């Protein structure tokens, strides 16, 4: 035991805290009224950039709990250059992510070879019915507007920052 008994030191600490709280205010964030900005990398919701998707099914296969549902068909598209052959492209009919199953692991975004899936830090999409958590491709496409620009990297990194296609167009 030192000069001041530990009980008194502890009481002093809480007393300091009450003064700090009264003067500076509590650290509490009153959620619906105030909001904290999540980090740009935060895995909030998956956004789909439909034009890039070739319905290759990689994401659906790699998903650990198989919560991505994809259907597509082949279609003939007009040739890129005049006089060329019509191209055959994969057209997306259905792209659903069931957020009631999703574990937010990010594997789908990572494996996508065509940069069609992106993470958005948006988190306010709770629903009253669990079935409404199944987001179809229009809803997933709408999240695209909330996708932030990729952050720059810390010094010494060799990885190059990617670009978000939807933002490029704007």
């Amino acid at each position, binding site marked *: 035991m030192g000069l001041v008994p530990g009980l008194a030191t*502890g*009481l002093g600490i809480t*007393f300091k*805290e009450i003064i*700090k*709280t*009264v003067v500076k205010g*509590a650290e*509490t964030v*009153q959620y619906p009224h105030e909001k904290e900005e999540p980090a740009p990398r935060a895995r909030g919701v998956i956004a789909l950039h439909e034009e890039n998707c070739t319905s290759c099914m990689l994401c659906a296969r790699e998903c650990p709990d198989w919560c991505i549902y994809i259907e597509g068909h082949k279609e003939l598209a007009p040739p890129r250059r005049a006089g060329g052959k019509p191209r055959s492209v994969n057209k997306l009919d259905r792209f659903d992510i069931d957020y009631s199953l999703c574990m937010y692991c990010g594997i789908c975004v990572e494996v996508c070879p065509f940069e069609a899936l992106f993470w958005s830090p948006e988190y306010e999409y709770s629903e009253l019915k669990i079935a409404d958590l199944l987001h179809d491709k229009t809803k997933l496409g709408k999240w695209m507007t909330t996708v932030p620009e990729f952050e720059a990297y810390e010094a010494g990194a060799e990885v190059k920052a990617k670009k978000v296609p939807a933002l490029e167009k704007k």
Partner: protein
Amino acid sequence: MDPYLLDGVDFGDVVLSVAKAILAFVICLVATMFMVWFERKVVSRLQNRIGPNTSGPFGILQTLMDGIKLFFKEDNIPKEADPFVFRLAPYLSLIPAFLTFTLIPLGGDFNNGNDGAVTVFGRETFLQVADPPVGILFFLAMSSLGIYGIMLAGWASGSKYPLLGSVRASAQAISYEAALGLSLAAVVLVTGGLSMNSIVMQQAGEGFGGIIPNFNIIVTGFIPFAVFLIAGTAELNRPPFDLVEAEQELVGGFHTEYSGIRFALFFLAEFMNTVTMAAIIVTLFFGGPAGPAFLGSTLGWLTGMFWFLLKLLVFLFAFVWFRASLPRFRYDQLMSLGWKLLIPLSLGWLLVLAGIRVARNGDLGIADSAFGDTLIVIGVAFAILLIGMYVLRSAMTNARRDRLIAAGFNPREVN
């Protein structure tokens, strides 16, 4: 005795008594509700949080809302419970809590030798519901009765955790009642009376040097106050002595099986007890409504109210502060603190205090002057205290060794 009751009782006196009782009940309830809010708000501030803030301004109606919610909850009586005692227990806990509150002088002018009486409808009365001549003893009686509520609740629940809680409650009550009583005895010794009004009046006078007030905390020499504060906190089952309802150990302790309005009654009783105990401490050791004498009474009888509430608030804050900062004792540590420290300490201090009083009156006549007598008494008393401490310690060590040998161990090995 209240002055208006001295000259016989007529109809007006009865009306006044009833009015005072109702008023006190309302004050007590409002104070309790305020206390619940105050506790939650202060604890949240101590923990860097906001606390209740949606019902009413600053969340002050939160307690009311909680009460309404609990009122409409299902009233669940477990199958194993003893239904009658189970229903009875919350009231046994609540009523003594309120009855103690009737003893407390809430205000009045105590300066210049006034006895704190105010004139209401032509009748002189104290600002307290009743001033029985046995004052303090009534408080002790009621605080012991309050434990019955907790004990019976735990027993009647027919479940194991509440049973453990109630066993703890009864043991705690028994051991701390003694320390509480002995530290009170010091106050009674100084005052020479048991009535709350006389205790306040005695403290209202001018103290040492005219600036330091004549409060009992100084007159009795701090130790009875410290003992009373610790024993009182234990009696309240408030942290750090809340073994009775220790959440992490006994889930909810004695009220584990209670729900709805019955739980609310326990909750109310607990906080009412807190307010009452703080008020008792203020009255016994800090002069209650009597402010420091040199400041006079600028507000008339409201001065008393002002001082009383101010001191009360300080103690309520202290209770909350302790709760937020201190961990909980273990059951046997609590017992040993009570029996091995608080009771011998308050008993010894009472004897010293008594000796000093006798010596100061000059009745001893050992030395030439009363002052010399006092010094001798103090010297002898401290010598006895030291010897007593040594004897007590060695007795405890010996007893422990004997028990270890009886259990078949070499005491040196075990330590």
